[in-house]
């Protein structure tokens, strides 16, 4: 049943400084509320247990896409629609655009944010695998200062994050070193849109003289968190793509992920399809 709205408190600080001050004053007391596309669902179902929220939707410091020489910085409030529309993102980070296109419907894409997708920490989220491939870094800010954290180190367990209760995720930084990667993004689901994925796969690689010079593999919905499959990457590096390599990589990948049976699919299916996705990626990589 829908929660009782007067039980909730929502504050809208004037500035980032005010927001951080509030978070510092009552650690754990306040939680950020951005696009609301996840939180409103919980509210409607009466499952939103936390009661005090900090609206950050209007804070200019958390908005915009900035292109510098060596990296692109996305404000945490960057929406899926903005990701799809930005020229640099389209050119250099196509996996994020592909993920954004597959997230929810148009209304969700207009309102849902990249930062929200990260801190909601769902292992089935669509954009995190792409962020993992791009070696994204997160800027976490508190009154104590600013720290930069590789996104790969952010999720520590199911819905567990390397983030303090007084911190805000403010920006996402993408190094501009991946524009030449051959990329692959595939969300596998029951229907063509608006379905939480059974398996989500994002990958990028660079070939050099017939061998894999650089490869990044990331998966969603196959473990308690989204995962970057570094052992499989290791195995593939400097290899030519042939049947033996593909077979070995498939086997390695299947040891690196730990999918479960749930309402949306089976562990068996997820294991096999993850391996098939990798094989499909390698096939395409070979033929480009």
């Amino acid at each position, binding site marked *: *049943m*829908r*929660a*009782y*709205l*007067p*039980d909730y408190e929502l504050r809208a600080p004037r500035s980032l400084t005010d927001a951080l001050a509030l978070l510092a004053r009552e650690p754990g007391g306040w939680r950020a509320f951005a696009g609301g596309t996840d939180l409103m*669902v919980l509210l409607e179902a*009466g499952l939103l247990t936390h009661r005090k929220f900090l609206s950050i939707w209007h804070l200019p410091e958390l908005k915009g896409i900035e292109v510098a020489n060596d990296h692109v910085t996305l404000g945490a409030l960057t929406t899926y629609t903005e990701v799809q529309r930005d020229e640099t993102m389209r050119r250099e980070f196509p996996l994020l655009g592909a993920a954004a296109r597959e997230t929810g419907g148009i209304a969700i894409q207009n309102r849902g944010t990249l930062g929200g997708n990260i801190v909601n920490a769902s292992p089935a989220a669509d954009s995190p695998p792409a962020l993992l491939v791009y070696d994204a870094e997160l800027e976490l800010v508190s009154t104590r200062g600013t720290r930069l954290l590789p996104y790969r180190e952010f999720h520590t367990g199911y819905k567990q994050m390397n983030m303090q209760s007084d911190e805000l995720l403010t920006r996402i930084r993408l190094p501009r070193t991946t524009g030449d990667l051959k990329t692959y993004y*595939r969300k*596998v*689901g*029951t*229907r*063509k*849109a*608006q*379905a*939480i994925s*059974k*398996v989500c796969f994002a990958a990028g690689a660079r070939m050099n003289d017939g061998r894999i010079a650089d490869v990044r593999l990331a998966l969603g919905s196959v473990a308690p968190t989204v995962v970057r499959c570094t052992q499989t990457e290791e195995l593939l590096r400097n290899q030519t793509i042939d049947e033996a390599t593909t077979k070995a990589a498939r086997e390695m990948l299947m040891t690196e992920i730990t999918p479960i049976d749930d*309402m*949306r*699919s*089976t562990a*068996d*299916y997820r294991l*096999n*399809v993850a391996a*098939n*996705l990798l*094989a*499909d990626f390698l096939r395409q990589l070979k033929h480009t």
Partner: protein
Amino acid sequence: MSAKQNQRPASKQGSGVVGQPLNRVDGRLKVTGGARFAAEFPHDQMAYAVLIGSTIANGRIKGFDTSAAKRVPGVLAIITHENAPKLRPVATNPAEGDAAGRRVPLQSPVIYYHGQYIAVVVAETLEQTQQAAALVRVSYDEQPPAADMERERGKAYPPKGKVAGKPADTMRGNTDTGLAAANVRVDEIYRTPTEHHNPMEPHATIAVWDGDKLTIYDATQYTYGVRHAMATTFGVPEENVRCICKFTGGAFGCKGTVWSHVSLAAAAARVARRPVKLVTTRQQMFSNMGHRAETEQHVVLGATRAGKLTAIVHEGLSHTSTFDEYVEPFSKATHMLYACDNFKASQRLVALNVGTPTYMRAPGETSGMFALESALDELAYKLNLDPIQLRLVNYADTDPDTKLPWSTKLLKECYRTGAEHFGWARRKPAPRSMRDGRYLLGLGMATAVYPVNHFPSSARVRIQSDGSAIVESSTHDLGTGTYTVLTQIACETLGLPPERVEVIIGDTNLPKAMVSGGSSTVMSVGSSVQGAARAALAKLVETARADTRSPLYGASADQIVASDGRLALKSNDARGETYRDTLARAGMKEVEGSYDTEFNDKEKKFSSHAFGAQFAEVRVDPDFGEVRVTRFTGVFDIGRVMNMKTGQSQMKGGIIMGIGMALMEETVLDTNSGRLVNRDLAEYHVPVHADVPQLDVVLLENFDEHASPIGAKGAGEIGIVGAAAAVANAVYHATGVRVRELPITLDKLLGKGALA
């Protein structure tokens, strides 16, 4: 009987709009928000009701703690079984179009299923009501639920009532002999899951008492049914209850029954002494408003090498609730579809701790034809025979069940036209023999059939002194196009353009129509509208003929025709006058005609059914098991097509629902707790637009005078029948993998490896 023989003689009367793809006359109201649905009627002093559902699936309520809830400002009443007014049960009467599920709410502490209503909270605002409802504490004695058909199968029992009008166990000829004579056999189990209707509009009720008189605004398929139920439940005369339902936002069967929230809204209004609005949640709809029952169907087919069926066995299980009986009549169509001397049907029930299942779009045929038409497909492969050819070999020229001739049956034309439109000839017979790049391609087909159900119904037509007309009946528009089609039928007889005809429906103050279910509405109410329009016109003609000042004075009635709002001589159009002139001169405000359509089904001389042929093309990803329907053709014989646009839309809606059934729809019951796991639209998947290809729908020309006076056979349900089987058969053709358990999800198809 061919289409030609049955064509209606060309009528000189009317503007001939029947059959034309007239846009919905209520379209503008719908898109501008002007169409008022049940929850949208404002009332002074409206209070709000919220239902509380049980959090256990089996047991008893020990007690309530309402102290915190009562302290919420604005709370007017908290009604539980401890303080609820006495509500009388309503007898189930199938003849009245009632479904099962009439357990009287809040009369005992017994819990039969998860989500069962255990309390109603009434307060001044919706927010206060929700808050108070959230604060009601309940303690239970919980028992383990029966929530798994497999686990409970040992307790399966024969239905107490009939199965779609027939005994639960029936035999024609001898299937043992038939199977012994067979050269080839198919013997398989097919399963369909629990599915939910999920109309867009939630069930909603506004109840307003004025002394002993009750006005009830309800999202329903049956206004008179609501009236009858409320009169019985509250012990007031039927005429004291008025039910209003101007638009229903989709139903598919779940609004055909008066579920218990309706009486709870009325009880809440009585206790609170205020008009009360109650809108159910999507979650409550999953638990409390019926569903398509899960089935396990055993189909055995025996055939000669030439494909002639020597025996058909169709038997199995479906579930019902522990407190009521609903049988999903999956063997219904198998009785009559194919010519076969030896046929056996048998159905058993398993009682589960769930709400009672109910009618859902083509109940029986939808689940049953998935099994039968899949089995036919399997037989075709075993015989190395084209699936259409196999169906033609077993084509029934008369009804094998009743031995009656068909009223009309254009099924052969459906197969032929469908095969042409779809390009069936392109299909290579072997499974896994067609590809589209890296994708596996498959083509499949299935037959569709749905019986003619027509009910007695009444309508009134009034020709007004301004030359316009008003059509009245209590019937319903579920989004199906009733307003539009009734307009067209009246226009045809009255010779008026659509903008001069106003259709008023959805109110028990109007002449009685039965439940809008079983694809009956247009056949039944449409025939009454035609009859009433003819009666009104006859009165107008009499008025003109009898008036010495009329140019038609003295002319014989059969020489007078109506068109463009005028009466004129058939032989001389100049000799005539407008309706307005006739009525004005006579000093009359209007002429009125009424008509009660009766159907004498006791002395049936024909067997009447709508027919169709469904063709699906699928593309299967061999690595991921994703199935996408890429093309679909459906060809149907639904008798006379009253509106080509709304008629085709009905078929398309059915086909889309069939695609959903084939590939994604499934309600998951937690077998331990008895809770529905996916009781929302995020996890109960129906097709999105991107899942639906261009649908090619053909409606054949026909006029079935035995089905209904207006020649229609019913359009609401046949579109879904066979659609899932066509997709499933296409999936087998593409992959060589036969999935006999719907939905055909990716994991079932892929198994432990890949299809590549």
